[in-house]
C-alpha cells in the first residue's frame, strides 16, 4: 500500500543562525552542543516516517521531545528548516501560500489540545468554519456540519456557545470541526490530554469507533504511553527531536530499540498491550469422527485433561474432557454426544487484560480463534502469568501461531 503521508529527513531549528546550526547538526553534533555554540534550538532532528491510509499513527514522547513541532510541520503551521513532507506524493514544503491553503482546506485538518474553539461563534458556526472559509454555500455547509456534530454525539447543541459546554463536549466540537472539512488526514495534537481520565478514555473509544467507519489517516500526538498503546496502530517514539523507534505497540513493548525505549515502556501495564496471540500455545485437537477412544489416548499421551474438537476446516466445535471421553467409551457414545459446545473462546487480538476474567472462571483452557472461528491455539494460566511478570521467554515473540 502506498503511504498517504511521507516525512523525509525533516529538521526544524529555532532561533538565530539556523544555517550554521544545520551544518553542525549534519556533522553529528548533539542538540546541547549546538545550543551552546550557536544559540539555536534543534526542535526536530532528521525525522522520517511514513503513514499509511486508514491507520492511526501515534507520535509519542515527553514534553520537549519535538512531537508538537513535528505535527505542526505536517500542515506547515511551522515551516521545516530542511527535509520533505509529501502528502499524496506532493511535497508541501515547496508550496506557495495558495497551494498550501488548498492542502489545508481539502486534505489535512487538525484537532487542538486546548480545543481552540472560537468563543464568539456557536457550536454550529465553529463546526462550519473550515467550510465557511472555502465559501461553500451556507445550506451545504450547515448540512455537513450537522452531520459531523451528529457523528460526535452533539446533536441538539448547535446553537450553544463553546463556553456553555464541558471540556469533553468542547473537544467533540473540535473533532466535529475537523471532520466537517472531510479531509483524509486528521492531525490530533494531544487532543485528549486536557480532559480528565474518564472522559479521555471515553473519547478514545469514540475515536476508535469513528475511525472504524470513516477510515481516516490519523496522526495522533500524545505524551501518554497508555493512550498511545490503546489507540495506535503504529507508534513513533521521539526523544530530543529524534524519532527513536517506529513500530506496532507490541514491537515497541517487546523489542525496545534501545535502553531509552526500554526504560520508557518498563512501567507499562503489559496486560493492556499483550494480546492472546502473544501467549497462546499449540492446542491439541481432534476431529469428532476419530472417536472418543483416540481422544482419550491423545490426552493420556500428552497429559492433558481436555482436548478441543474441530471440523475438517479447523473450525472449533467444542471440547471434551478426559472424564467425558472415558464415559463415552464405556457407554459407546460418539464424541459429538458428550462434548461441551458452550466453551469460552477469545479472539487472537484480545488484550490479556480482557481475558483474565474468563481465564479465572473457565474450567477449560481458553480457546483462541480467528475471525472465522478457526482454532488458533490455547491459553493456559502459566503462560499468561509468565508474560505479565515480564518473562520474555513466555512470549511468542515471532508471532508463532499454529499454521
Amino acid at each position, binding site marked *: 500500500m502506498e503511504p498517504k503521508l511521507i516525512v523525509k529527513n525533516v529538521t526544524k531549528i529555532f532561533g538565530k543562525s539556523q544555517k550554521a546550526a544545520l551544518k553542525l547538526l549534519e556533522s553529528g553534533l548533539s542538540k546541547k552542543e549546538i545550543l551552546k555554540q550557536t544559540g539555536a534550538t534543534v526542535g526536530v532532528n532528521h525525522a522520517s516516517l511514513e503513514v499509511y491510509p486508514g491507520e492511526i499513527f501515534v507520535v509519542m514522547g515527553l514534553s520537549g521531545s519535538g512531537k508538537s513541532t513535528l505535527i505542526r510541520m505536517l500542515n506547515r503551521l511551522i515551516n521545516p528548516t530542511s527535509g520533505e513532507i509529501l502528502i499524496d506524493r506532493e511535497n508541501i514544503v515547496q508550496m506557495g501560500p495558495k497551494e498550501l491553503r488548498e*492542502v*489545508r482546506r481539502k486534505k489535512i*485538518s*487538525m484537532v487542538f489540545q486546548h480545543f481552540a474553539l*472560537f468563543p*464568539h461563534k456557536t457550536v454550529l458556526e465553529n463546526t462550519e468554519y473550515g467550510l465557511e472559509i472555502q465559501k461553500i454555500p451556507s445550506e451545504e455547509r450547515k448540512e455537513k456540519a450537522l452531520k459531523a456534530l451528529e457523528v460526535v454525539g452533539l446533536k441538539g447543541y448547535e446553537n450553544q456557545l463553546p463556553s456553555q459546554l464541558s471540556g469533553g463536549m468542547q473537544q467533540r466540537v473540535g473533532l466535529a470541526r475537523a471532520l466537517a472539512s472531510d479531509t483524509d488526514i486528521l492531525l490530533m495534537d494531544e487532543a485528549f490530554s486536557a480532559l480528565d481520565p474518564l472522559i479521555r478514555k471515553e473519547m478514545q473509544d469514540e475515536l476508535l469507533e469513528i475511525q472504524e467507519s470513516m477510515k481516516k489517516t490519523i496522526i495522533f500526538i500524545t505524551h501518554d504511553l497508555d493512550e498511545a498503546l490503546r489507540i495506535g496502530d503504529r507508534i513513533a517514539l521521539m526523544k530530543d527531536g529524534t524519532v527513536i523507534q517506529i513500530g506496532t505497540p507490541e514491537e515497541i513493548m517487546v523489542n525496545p530499540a534501545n535502553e531509552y525505549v526500554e526504560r520508557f515502556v518498563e512501567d507499562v501495564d503489559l496486560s493492556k498491550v499483550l494480546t492472546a496471540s502473544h501467549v497462546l500455545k499449540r492446542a491439541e485437537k481432534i476431529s469428532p469422527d476419530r472417536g472418543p477412544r483416540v481422544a482419550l489416548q491423545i490426552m493420556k499421551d500428552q497429559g492433558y485433561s481436555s482436548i478441543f474438537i474441530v471440523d475438517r476446516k479447523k473450525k472449533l466445535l467444542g471440547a471434551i474432557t478426559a472424564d467425558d471421553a472415558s464415559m463415552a467409551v464405556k457407554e459407546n457414545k460418539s464424541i459429538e454426544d458428550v462434548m461441551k459446545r458452550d466453551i469460552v473462546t477469545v479472539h487472537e487480538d484480545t488484550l490479556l487484560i480482557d481475558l483474565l476474567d474468563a481465564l479465572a472462571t473457565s474450567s477449560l483452557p481458553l480457546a483462541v480463534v480467528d475471525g472465522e472461528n478457526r482454532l488458533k491455539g490455547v491459553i493456559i494460566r502459566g503462560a499468561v502469568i509468565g508474560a505479565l511478570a515480564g518473562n520474555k521467554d513466555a512470549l511468542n515473540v515471532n508471532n508463532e501461531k499454529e499454521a
Partner: protein
Amino acid sequence: MSIPKLPLAHWVDIIVEWITQHLGAFFDGISAIIGTLLDIIMTVLGYGPPIILILLLTLLALYTSRWGVAIFTFIGLLLVDNLGLWDATIKTLALVIASVVITIVIGIPIGIWSSQNDKVRKAITPILDFMQTMPAFVYLIPAILFFGIGVVPGILASVIFAIPPTIRLTNLGIREVPKDLIEATEAFGSTTSQKLFKVQLPLAAPTILAGINQSIMLALSMVVFASLVGAPGLGAEVYRAVTQIKVGEGFEAGLAIVIIAIILDRISQNFIKPQFDKTIQKKWIYGAFTIVFLVACIFAAIGQARPDLKGAGNVGSQVNYEITGIDPGAGLMKATEKAMKDYQLKKWTLKEGSAAAMTAQLKKAYEKKQPIIVTGWTPHWMFSKYKLKYLDDPKGSFGKGEAIHTMVRKGLKEDNPGAYQILDQFYWKPSDMEEVMLDIENGAKPEDAAKKWIKQHADKVSQWTKGAPKGNGKKVSLVYVAWESEIASTNVIGAVLKQEGYNVSLKQVEAGPMFAGVADGSADGMVAAWLPTTHKDYYNKYKGKLVDLGPNLKGTKLGLTVPKYMKINSIEDLKK
C-alpha cells in the same frame, strides 16, 4: 567649555516653512474635507429643537447602559440647554464626533497593520509616545500654519492627541488573541483577511472599543485647547471665561463639558454589550441610529452645497465671510463686533483664536497672496514685516487711537518709591517699540532685544531713571500679556529696572489675570493696559483697586487690517 546651542527650533521652523509652501494645496484639500464633515455633523446635530437630540441621546443611553445613565443624560442635557450652552455643546459634540471618526478611520487600520508586522509596531511605538507626551499646544502651532485657524487645526490636534489609545489597543487586542485560535484558523486554510475579519477583529473588539472610549475622552479634553486656535464650542466658552476672569461662567461651561464627558463615556463603554441586548438586538438599534444619522447628513450636505453657488467673486466669498480675530474677550474683538453691527455685516463671522494664531494665519495667506481680513493694531511688528493697510472706518466704530498705560498696585509708591518713579517716567513712541518687536520677531531673545535697544537709546533711558534712587536688590514684579508689543515694552522696562539694581521678575499671563494681579497686589505693576478701548472691561472692573500712572505710549490704532495687495479700502467695501 560651552557647546553652542543646537538650532533645533530653527530647523523645525525651516521644515514647517517648506511644508507650508510646497504642500499647501494638499492641506487646503484636507482642510476643506474636514471642514465640510464638521459642518454637516453640526447641522445634523443642531437640527430641530434641542429636545429631539436630548431624547435620542437619552434613548441611546438607556439602551446601552441603564436607567441611571439615561436619567442622568436627560437631566444633564436639559441643564446644559437651560444654561444657554446648547449651541456650544452641539459644536463640541460635533468636534468630538468628527475627531473620533477620523481617529477610527486612521487609527484602526494602523493598529491592525502594526499587529501584523513587528517592524511597523516597533516604528510606531515611539511615535505614539511622542504624540502622547508632547504638550498638545505644540502641535497647534504647525496646525495653524498648515490649516489656518478655526476648527480644522483643532480637530487635527485632537486627532493627534486622541489617536494613540485606539492604535495601541487595536494592536494589543489583536495580538492578545490566543495563539491556538490563530493556529486553528490557519490550519483550516484561512487567508490573512479571513483570519483578521472572522477571528482576530471580533475577538479583539472589546479591547478596541476600550481604546476608542479612551480616544473619545482624550478628544473631549482637547476641545478646550482647540479653542485657542479658534475652534468653537464649550472650550471657547471656558477660554473666554478664563481670559475675563468670569468664575461663574467658567464653571457653567466646565460643568457642561463634564456632563458631556460622562454621557459619552458611559455610552461608549457599554456600546459592545448593551444592557438591553436581549430585548432588542443591537444591530437593529445601531442600524437605525446610523441610518437616521446618514440620511440627515445627506440632507445637510445638500443644504450646504447650495449657498456656495451664489455671490462668488466678491471679497466676502473669497474669505468665506470670515474676519480673523484674536483672543475672545479682547477689546479689539468687542470693537470689531461693534463695527460689524455698525456696518451691518450680517453674513460675516468673527473667528476667535489668539494673537499668535492670527499672525500665523496672516503669514500663511500673505505668502500665497490670498485675501484675508484680520483684526489689527499698532504697534505691531506685522506692519514692519508685511505690507498691510487699515480699512477706512468712516463710522468710527474702532474709536480714535489708544494709549498704553502703566498701572501699579496701591502702596507701591510707599513701599518702593524708586521703582514707582521709574515706571511713572517710562514713556516712549510706537516706532521705538516696533524696533524692539521686529528684533524679537526676527529671532532675538526678548531680553537681548531690550538690552540692545537700551544701549542704543541711552538718552531716552536716562530720562526715565532721572532722580530715582538705586534699587539695591529691592524686588519688583511685573506682569504682562503675551502680545508682541507688551513683551517688548515689559522687557525693556524690566531691563532698565535691573540695570538700576532692582531684582526684577516678569510674569506672562492673560489680560484678565494681569489686571487682577496688579489689583490684588500679587504683582507690583504692568506697562500693558490698552485704553480706552482694548482693556476697557478690565479697567472698569478694577479701576478703584490700582493706580493708573498714565500712558507710556500714545498713538496706537485698532482696525480691520488687510494686505496691501487686496483691492478694498474701506469697511464699507465688505458689504458688497
